């Protein structure tokens, strides 16, 4: 379920507006992005089928609203990423710049910082 560019735009719009029908969405994007009402309708329908939007029928048209709040989705993503980072190397699916599982005490960190400072000083003298 990777999202296309328009799908992301519509989702972000609905996260901001909370509720809108296809015509409202179309009139918003008509100026900036272009595209027909049909494209907007089918994209909204796709997002609904992917479970990212919910909809209610108002007359002949559907009104769409986000099924999941952005903060909620981001929160669960961050939790899962932090859990991945805390895993050991053989099981983690991320390549992190610094592993959360990497634990250096203050003394060791200070020792490494001193080593870097010494190297910097030496480089300064060489110049």
């Amino acid at each position, binding site marked *: *379920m*990777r*999202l296309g560019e328009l799908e*992301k735009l519509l*989702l972000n719009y609905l996260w901001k507006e909370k509720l809108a029908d296809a015509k409202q969405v179309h009139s918003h994007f008509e100026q900036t992005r272009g595209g027909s009402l049909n494209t907007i309708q089918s994209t909204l329908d796709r997002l609904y089928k992917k479970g*990212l939007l919910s909809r209610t029928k108002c007359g002949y048209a559907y009104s769409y609203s986000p099924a999941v709040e*952005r903060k909620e*989705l*981001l929160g*669960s*993503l*961050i939790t*899962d*990423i*932090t*859990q*991945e*980072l*805390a*895993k*050991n*190397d*053989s*099981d983690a*699916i*991320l*390549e*992190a*710049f*610094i*592993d*959360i*599982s*990497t*634990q*250096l*005490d203050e003394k*060791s*960190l200070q020792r*490494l*910082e001193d*080593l*870097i400072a010494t*190297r*910097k000083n030496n*480089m300064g003298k060489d110049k």
Partner: protein
Amino acid sequence: MIGEGLSLMLHLLYIISITVLILGGLCWLINPFFIKWVTKFNPQSRLILLRSFGSTPLVGALVIGVMISIPALNHSSTLPIDHCHVSSNCIGSPAAHMVTISELAVIGTALCLFCWASLIAFMQWRRSYKLLERLDVTSGSMLTSNVQLIETELPLAFSLGIFRPNAVLSTGLVNNLSSQQLHIVCTHEEVHAQYRDGLYKWILRFMCTFHYPNVKRAVLKEHALSLELRADQQVALSTECNVAVAEAIIKLQRLMSPIKNEGPLCQFLGSELEQRVHYLLAQVPGSSLPRHTLLLSTICFLILSICGSLPLHNTIEALITR
């Protein structure tokens, strides 16, 4: 006809399975010396050696399976090894040329390992895909053309994805780093994505399932460290300042400290970070495997595989039928 085909397949599977287990045992014996020897090389060479070592049981078994089976194409019995079983141990009638119970147990063990490796690989791919999906939906702007940005106060920098890797940085990290440090972290993660480190790690994890658990752990740990060292080395080359990269590593470690003190998930792997800093500050980067050595090894391996096929087949046949 079906019976003959099944018999051929089971015998071939037996040869591959027993070779996997034997090669796994041999790797277990040489593992401590190998890991020590590998650390003399630079990260790129280490990765080549570790990946070759990690794939040895499975790839070696497949090669030996083919080597033994090819001369058997002339056999009237259509068996990879033309031998007779003790009829009491044979499944079915002796005329069916089926495998014995013990041979079937060896096949079962190897197949269980294979299924386990496949299941773990699938679950890891799924986890990675699910994270990418949510990242795709929630990520805001792009920091550079290759680096995605996520909105969180946590200082995160990682690359994610097996087939289409993405480099990701958090806003919390971006706000706390200088422009040079930010460039270092971005380039580091881009190197991971560019070299498809996630994919190689994923494949190696699968291959290492056929090693003994302690060998698997050691190889994967050394591989993960080598990936980080290579990324650091590439960044140091592009910035032409090893000290700045080492400083960025320590800075990030300090930013990470509040997170790791929160949960009970922390493990002691601090030596990895120390090794990265020491490697960056060291004057000698480690020797590299010359290209001609690699080429020569590959040619020797191919010649040995082709020429050794018949002698290996005959030796094993003689050993079994004696």
